[in-house]
């Protein structure tokens, strides 16, 4: 029975490998339009964004407790996006909007409709940039591990990890400036990507931990494409103070 199962897994893997779209260089081709990453069970947000499942978290380090930082009543702290501040990564990636990926030999460009988040990920073997300021989206570099694209991102500002505060307004999950993320992207089948996101934040957790998400291809969204998102255009009630009509 075990042999049969292994044979089935092997045949399935070969079948997926043969049927996925590939670039001229023979690498898996992720160019296309997608839904946002969705959790495969576990904790769900009281909103449509995807959030991390706390059951998968590694234990907190002593001193890592401010990760669950209470709201303090200051809207600039409690929900900076209300002032059109960026969601950052990984939070923005998990927002419930369409995404479009463009892939060349040397780059993967991820464009997310929410805040028009754009990540330019070099695939040419370069190292992380040095001597630049920490940022909301970090500094990503990618490399191939067989048919899996591995993206390592470092140099983040301390910022919101996900949208958990919609579920519990009293808690605001923050990552630290020591965060390193590792994304592993591969075709699961012809319509879905496996997206495994590792959170390695040694100021908060005792060890790295990961969650797998599923990203569904949406070729039917290609025709409309992504819609514009300029937050500053008509943000009428920042921080709950509505401005003139």
């Amino acid at each position, binding site marked *: 029975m075990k042999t049969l199962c292994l044979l089935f897994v092997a045949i399935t893997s070969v079948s997926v490998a043969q049927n996925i779209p590939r670039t001229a260089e023979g690498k898996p081709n992720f160019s296309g339009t997608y839904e946002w990453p969705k959790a495969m069970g576990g904790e769900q947000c*009281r*909103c449509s964004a995807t959030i991390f499942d706390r059951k998968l978290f590694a234990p907190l380090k002593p001193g890592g407790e401010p990760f669950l930082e209470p709201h303090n009543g200051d809207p600039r702290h409690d929900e900076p996006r209300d002032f059109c501040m960026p969601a950052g990564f990984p939070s923005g990636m998990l927002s419930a909007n369409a995404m479009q990926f463009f892939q060349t030999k040397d780059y993967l460009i991820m464009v997310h409709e929410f805040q028009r988040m754009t990540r330019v990920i070099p695939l040419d073997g370069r190292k992380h940039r040095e001597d630049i300021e920490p940022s909301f989206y970090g500094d990503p570099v990618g490399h191939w591990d067989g048919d899996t694209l591995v993206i390592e991102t470092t140099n983040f500002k301390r910022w919101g990890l996900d949208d958990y505060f919609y579920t519990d307004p009293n808690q605001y999950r923050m990552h630290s400036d020591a965060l390193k993320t590792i994304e592993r992207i591969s075709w699961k089948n012809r319509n879905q990507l496996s997206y495994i996101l590792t959170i390695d934040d040694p100021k908060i957790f005792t060890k790295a931990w990961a969650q797998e998400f599923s990203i569904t291809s949406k070729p039917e969204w290609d025709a409309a494409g992504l*819609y514009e998102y300029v*937050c500053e255009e*008509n943000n009428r009630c920042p921080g709950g103070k*509505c401005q003139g009509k």
Partner: protein
Amino acid sequence: MQKRVVLPLLLTALTTIPPLQAHHSFAAEFDDKKPVKMTGVVTKVEWQNPHIWFYVDVKGDDGKVTNWGFSGGAPGQLMRRGIAKKVIQEGMTITVEGFRSKDGSNNANGARVTFPDGRSVFTAGAEDRAPGDGKGK
């Protein structure tokens, strides 16, 4: 015949699709202890980011007309749900349900819009919610 089939399908889609993520926290802008329900005439529609706004002249019991602003979801999210700008047009009479803004001004989230023929559209984002629908906290 086609209209008879398409309209119920469209209305089902508009009222059953799960709420979508908006850019702000509901709690940051609106007071869930102050539900509002108003009927009036649409005076303006701003189909803009980060949230659509539509404005409605509402006549009070004293006959005085007040212009209210209602905030909905992001245009891109609404369009991908099949809700286009033309759904709410100037001159339409609509009933809007939502929650008043925290600052006490004549603004609210416009979560549910009902037309005179009974059709209903959920126009809000994720953490926005309509009175009585039990979403969020």
